[in-house]
């Protein structure tokens, strides 16, 4: 029986291996990400989850393996061959970071405008039309501000649009990073521990936001998470990593009852599992 996410996956990861010298961070990893699914990548600390993200987004070049992305219009991208900014721009992969990477000295709105850099640069004809304030660029800029405003409303930060991003409380910075990624109009959103450091109420809001993004934007979400309440509640599909190896892959219910996963998380002796 094939799982639903294997029918028309947006992302096919095959035999992905990443070595750093003698250290094997990811070992022969294969999994699929469904086109409109929320897929979670979980595992204990040091399991190689963030390394997978860095390979997907071009920050690392994988030692071996293939990452094939298929857009809804049939365009295909081999992510392991592309530069990071090309992956973001053409393959439309957006990501957030485990330790928040906002532009702290720029305002909230500016952060969202930077995310729309490529369409705006194109509209400004590489700054030349922009320099003379031509109409085409002004229209594009207005649209960009509108899109930013739309996302600020979603994350409930309209009132703080003109404050520096570094001044926001931690939870708001997390939300802003998601909004910034969404301003790129991605087809897949990769979130690296979005609920880390959030209180239960904020964590709940995050769930609502992610479910809303999936419904409204019809995109795939891939997330790394430690917070099981987030993972179990919103994921359609979970892959579990331990020491760079995939130990389980399936629906939340399947993963929850998988003895390998329980062993990896609770640290049960190997013979007890076998």
């Amino acid at each position, binding site marked *: 029986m094939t799982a639903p996410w294997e029918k028309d996956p947006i992302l096919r990861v095959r035999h992905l291996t990443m070595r750093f010298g003698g250290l094997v961070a990811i070992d022969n990893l294969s999994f699929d990400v469904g086109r409109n699914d929320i897929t979670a990548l979980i595992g204990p600390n040091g399991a190689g989850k963030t390394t997978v993200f860095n390979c997907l987004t071009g920050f690392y070049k994988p030692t071996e393996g293939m990452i094939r992305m298929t857009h809804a219009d049939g365009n295909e991208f081999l992510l392991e061959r592309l530069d990071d900014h090309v992956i973001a721009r053409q393959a439309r992969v*957006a990501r957030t970071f485990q330790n928040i990477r*906002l532009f*702290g000295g720029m305002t909230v709105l*500016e952060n969202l405008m*930077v995310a*729309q*850099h490529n369409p705006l640069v194109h509209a400004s004809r590489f700054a030349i039309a922009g320099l003379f304030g031509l109409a085409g660029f002004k229209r594009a800029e207005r649209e960009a501000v509108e899109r930013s405003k739309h996302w600020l409303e979603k994350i409930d930060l309209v009132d703080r*649009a003109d404050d520096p991003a570094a001044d926001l409380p931690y939870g708001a910075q997390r939300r802003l990073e998601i909004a910034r990624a969404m301003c790129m109009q991605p087809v897949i959103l990769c979130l690296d521990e979005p609920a880390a450091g959030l209180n239960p109420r904020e964590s709940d809001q995050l769930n609502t936001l992610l479910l809303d993004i999936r419904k409204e934007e019809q995109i795939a979400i891939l997330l790394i998470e430690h917070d099981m309440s987030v993972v179990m509640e919103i994921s359609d599909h979970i892959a579990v990593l331990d020491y760079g190896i995939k130990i389980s892959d399936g629906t939340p219910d399947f993963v929850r009852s998988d003895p390998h996963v329980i062993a990896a998380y609770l640290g049960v002796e190997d013979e007890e599992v076998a």
Partner: protein
Amino acid sequence: MAQSETSLSARLPSALKDAAIAAFISLALFAFIVGIRTVDDPGKLLLEPRPWLLAGFVGAVFFGRLFLNLFFWSGAHTSEALTSALAPVGQIFERISPWLTPALVVFAITLPFLPFTDRYILDVAIMVMTYIMLGWGLNVVVGLAGLLDLGYVAFYAVGAYSYALVATHFGLSFWVALPLAGLLAALWGIILGFPVLRLRGDYLAIVTLAFGEIIRIVLINWYSLTNGPDGISRIPRPTFFGLELTRRGEPSFHEFFGIPYSPLNRIIFLFYIILVLALITNFVTNRLRRLPLGRAWEALREDEIACRSLGINTRNTKLSAFAIGAMFGGFAGSFFATRQGFISPESFTFIESAIILAIVVLGGMGSQIGVVVASIVMIGGFELFRELEHYRMLMFGLAMVLIMIWRPRGLITSREPSVFLKEKKAVSGELVQEGKG
């Protein structure tokens, strides 16, 4: 009273130790500066040792330091006291800065016609304006993109030599050669940019420093092209729509307008040229800041990795900052050449790069008005203390140290956002990153 005496005796060992360290450092410094004097004997150079004078200097440091340690310094940091004492001055400065810009522009436009203006003041003003323009150009690279460039003078030199060579060999006028010089400097900015893009921080600074020196050394040694250390002379002066600003020009400015000839006319004309060039630099930079390109520069300074994750081509973005900064340097360089009428590699030493960078840092990285104030203070101050001769370098160093203690992020620290939704609020300098190259 008894209490203070016990604390005095308790403090004595540490005070003695501190004074001894200070005395040792001063011994190492003064041994060569004061301890030995060179005497010019016919035919050879004699060294005359002066041990007693040296002992006097070191002794003065030792006892002075001991005295200060025991009776004045009770452990509180003097730098903190200085910072808090000078804080109100900084606040006033931030408050008047919005009014400063129009006031300064009006002042600059009317300067040549003010009653106290003479040749000397105009010459200083031209020099200050040149440094303002260079500071604004470098501000694109250092202040906005956060790339530390210690070799900015290279582009200044490329601009100056481009104009000088094109004008003397092909007879192109200043106005034709000016854009050419800017383009050539921008090209060199890109040529420098390519190899150094992978470097960050200190490494980038060292390579740009080396690039500045390479350009200067090439200028000295490529005798057939640049005339080496002899420099290029008889560089043509700029003309006012073809009118020459000389006594016997064909056609000449004063005859055309029917005004009496004055050598000041040419100086005033030069002043307005550099004023317009500088204002263009400012306008373009301010415009670029509000465009996606400029916003990407600032984002690059804040966090390069986040930029890459947002699809920004960091290589091209850095190159564009280098090229545009270099272009303004090239414009300023060709103005320098036409003003001096003579250029040689000596005008493009590292100290020029250091002064321009100091102006940017002192003014507050990324702040346009800060650059203006810093140029006026530094270049004007340099002129003001001309009688002090080589001690003015010492004064300059002292002033830099004091200002860096007082305002470590420069005179204007706040950042103006490039776009806003409801109201424009300045971003505190504390939050703004300085860039890691």
